[in-house]
């Protein structure tokens, strides 16, 4: 199976132009025989939207431009980020998995970073769940950026049987060291390595690049295999389209060696969580 990571730089607030960029990038990935292409968080809109959120939001089932993307998913599967309007006036930072000309699954970002340089909870409603769903390559789960840094979210997808954990991201680079990357890039890789290893699943992380108001989105998209091995890595800060070859049989091989999946006991975790939530303390 071939996965393409579209490390693009969307234009803030210009969905028409971004849709065009998506269609062109999908065509490039198709020519390189990709089976799945993953775009970054809010790939159709740009990230620092603030009061633009209502202006760029849409209902994916009733939005003709979005349907163009859905139609393209007849040739290869697509993961894309956008602002979803559910009901009237409720906006979420969403990720959609498109395949076979239809919307297979939508995940709404549950952990909205708010504090320091982030203010997402001022503009978005939080999503409420993580759910693994079926694709032609196995079970997949979606996360949006900060979701991935809550390891409980990774666990939920693991417990749900995900073979692929796909994260779309708009993570700004922060912190410098003597190394040739932002400090935060290591943070994402660390989580990718750990979650792939202990979930015996592929972890597919697509981050954007480009600048918004001086923030540099760090890129550095990657894929880890189910053994916790780095399979693909895009450069920091530069646009790129990485196409990586994955061996689906690696999932079985990893689970033969490490029985984390077989040994998982979600009822024990659930029981513990219920008690913690039930305590209802500050």
């Amino acid at each position, binding site marked *: 199976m071939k996965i393409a990571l579209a490390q693009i*730089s969307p*234009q*803030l*607030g*210009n969905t028409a132009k971004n849709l065009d960029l998506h269609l062109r990038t999908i065509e490039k990935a198709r020519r390189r025989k990709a089976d799945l292409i993953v775009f970054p968080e809010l790939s159709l809109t740009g990230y*620092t*939207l*603030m*009061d*633009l959120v209502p202006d760029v939001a849409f209902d994916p089932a009733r939005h003709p431009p979005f349907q163009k993307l859905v139609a393209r998913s007849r040739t290869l599967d697509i993961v894309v980020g956008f602002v979803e309007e559910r009901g009237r006036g409720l906006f979420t930072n969403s990720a959609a998995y498109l395949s076979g000309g239809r919307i297979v699954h939508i995940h709404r970002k549950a952990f909205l970073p708010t504090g320091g340089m982030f203010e997402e909870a001022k503009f978005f409603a939080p999503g409420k769940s993580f759910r693994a769903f079926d694709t032609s390559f196995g079970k997949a789960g979606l996360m949006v950026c900060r979701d991935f840094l809550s390891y409980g979210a990774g666990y939920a997808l693991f417990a749900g049987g995900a073979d692929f954990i796909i994260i779309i991201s708009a993570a700004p*680079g922060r912190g*410098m*060291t*003597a*190394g*040739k*990357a932002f400090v935060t890039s290591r943070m994402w890789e660390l989580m990718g390595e750990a979650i792939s290893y202990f979930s015996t699943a592929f972890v597919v992380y697509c981050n954007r690049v*480009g*600048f*918004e*108001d*001086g923030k*540099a989105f760090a890129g550095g998209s990657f894929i880890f295999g189910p053994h916790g091995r780095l399979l693909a890595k895009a450069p*920091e*800060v*530069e646009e790129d389209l990485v196409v990586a070859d994955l061996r689906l049989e690696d999932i079985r091989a990893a689970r033969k060696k490490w029985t984390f999946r077989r040994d998982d006991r979600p009822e024990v975790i659930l029981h513990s969580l219920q008690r913690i939530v039930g305590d209802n303390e500050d």
Partner: protein
Amino acid sequence: MKINYAFVEKVLCAFIREELHKFGFGSGIVGLSGGLDSSVCAALAARALGGKNVLGMILPYKDTLDKDIEDARDLARKLGIRTRLIDIAPMVDAYFSRHATDNRVRIGNKMARERMSILYDHSALEKALILGTSNKTELLLGYGTIHGDMACAINPLGDLYKTQVRALGGHLRLPTRILKKTPTAGLWPGQTDEGEIGLSYPEIDAILYELVDERRPAKEVIASGFKKEAVKKIERMIIRSEFKRKMPPIAKISSRTVGHDFLYSYDRNR
């Protein structure tokens, strides 16, 4: 404080290129003083945009040293950027001939704002964006003239401390004469930043790094071995200069107000 200057160069050049492109400008303007910060900024701009797309404006006053002008010209030649020299003495002197003062700060600020005014005029003339040269140390201490040398369209150097700008200058292979120059705001002849602030840049930057990047309380920073007076002075300078880092407050009376809850990004639709 140790950082990878090749990576810094890559990020800052991408920033300059992208911001100009977004706003539909192909070239940039840097005010060249012959000093370190403006030289580093010009070198980054030349690498990001190509030398012919950068204009170095040399804007001396009567007391500007000939060697500073020569250093600015020499750098421009090395970088392959265009230069334009405009003497600001006629404009500055015209004002003070009617409103005489011996207050050096007022005269220095007037000069900084005269330069700003000429840079912005050339921004329109050349359809080019002004690249700022205020570094993180100056921004935090408020060591700059508001609406003067602090004014710019984009600032590639604002998250680098002075000592880091110097190291970046070394990485960019700037002439030794510029790398070794004593930092000065140039408000009056013989002025030096370190002389005026009373601390050396390595000292200032080390304290700022603890207070700002590490967010350690002054008490802890002093306890870890920094001089109490130095830490206190720096903390005072940061607090006192907040107004230089913000847009002026707007009195809010309506339900949606610029600067309060009319919330759009600088790069909106760019």
